[in-house]
């Protein structure tokens, strides 16, 4: 079991292999279909520099945040997988979700030294590993807004790294 603590370094990512079981701790961002394209727009326009969003070495967890808890949604949804490249170029190191992603995305992740990790949708267990949550941006999106969580030992498995994958 490898331990990943945010911010995640380039060296941390280089040492990850497909199939590695990891425990993720630190501050991670949560976003999905609705908010990730908006974050990409902020990156493309340069406006991200004027926000409280710090993507270098970060983890993006594909989940809603609500009183029901958190858990991964399908990362291969159009607006989620479509955000991987822009987010990776902006410094995101781990895209955390579930479901098969495309070969082109897997290759792009390698070029950006980023990885894709999957986790079981174990909401009841994750509740014990989630210490704090903070609404960061786009509150009008409700449960689909950008949130930051402070987490300890979120369990995941590396599903795509270095142009290899479990798929």
């Amino acid at each position, binding site marked *: 079991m490898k331990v990943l603590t945010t911010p995640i370094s380039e060296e941390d990512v280089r040492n990850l292999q497909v*199939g590695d*079981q990891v425990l993720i701790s630190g501050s991670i961002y949560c976003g999905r279909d*609705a908010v990730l394209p908006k974050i990409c727009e902020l990156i493309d326009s340069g406006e991200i520099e004027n926000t409280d969003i710090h993507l270098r070495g970060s983890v993006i967890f594909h*989940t*809603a945040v*609500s*009183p*029901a*808890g*958190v*858990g*991964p*949604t*399908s*990362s*291969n*949804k159009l607006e989620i997988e479509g955000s991987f490249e822009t987010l990776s170029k902006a410094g995101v190191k781990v895209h955390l*979700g*579930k*479901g*098969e992603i495309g070969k082109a995305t897997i290759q792009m992740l390698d070029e950006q030294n980023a990885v894709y990790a*999957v*986790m*079981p*949708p*174990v*909401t*009841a*267990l994750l*509740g*014990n590993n989630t210490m704090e949550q903070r609404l960061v941006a786009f509150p*009008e*999106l*409700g*449960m*689909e807004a950008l949130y930051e969580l402070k987490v300890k030992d979120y*369990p995941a*498995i590396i*599903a795509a790294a270095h142009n290899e994958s*479990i*798929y």
Partner: protein
Amino acid sequence: MNYNQEIVDKVCDALVRAGSTFTPDKKEAYKKAIQKETDDKARWVLETVLENAEVAEKNHSPLCDDTGIPHVVVEAGPNAAVTGTVLESIREGIRQGLRTLPGRPMAVKGNDAQRIAQSEGMYEDSGMLDAAPILIRSTDEEVLRVHILMFGGGPAIRAHTHRVFHKHKVEPVMDQIVEWAVESTAQLGCSPCTLAIGVGRSHYEAASLMLQALVDGRYEKQSEMEQEITNRVNESHVGALGLGGDTTVLATFMKVGPQRASGVRIVCMRPCCCFEPRISSCEL
């Protein structure tokens, strides 16, 4: 509307159970799968999903953060009466159950176009989430029974309802179901799945039969066709969470209705995720 409070309370409790509890036969299916699983990482996923279910049941908390859209099946015995008050009391029980669980606040605001575009945001009240249209069927038992099923979004994305040309053999229909299931379980991610299948004469009937298959299906009792589908999909080795291994599918629940004199069958196939069917029942 004057509600029947007893019905409201029973349905509220049933919804919370549906969203937080594995049925006993499902727990057994997981235990058997864990024993048989040969891939270490896939076994870890199966054990973690079962552990999650134990914690959720103990805390009466959601199994998954996508708490799902309520689907309701009512069974009415020979002398049972399903009145408007009964139906509205069931709907009120669902609203209260969603607030208690708590359900994810995902009812979309706005008019037709705004709801499609999700341009006006969501209600903060979990109870604003309407149930799908209620399905009513008769039974020989002297009972009025309600089944609550919570349908998550992932399986809905990956499900198919489509015509299949059967060529006057069962094999082309079975082959199509297996092909859909292998593709969709890999895309879904949150496997092992339980496949829910309805075969009917229209899209409405096929989807209705799929829903009833989830009510009537049992993990320990598989028909020949159900077992064949399960075995063939498991040969794909998509596995738990897509990691490979032996357990892509725990079981198949299939219901074949009356068929049209035609070369076409309408098949509905839902790859229910590792927590589904999230189901609970109560007698009113």
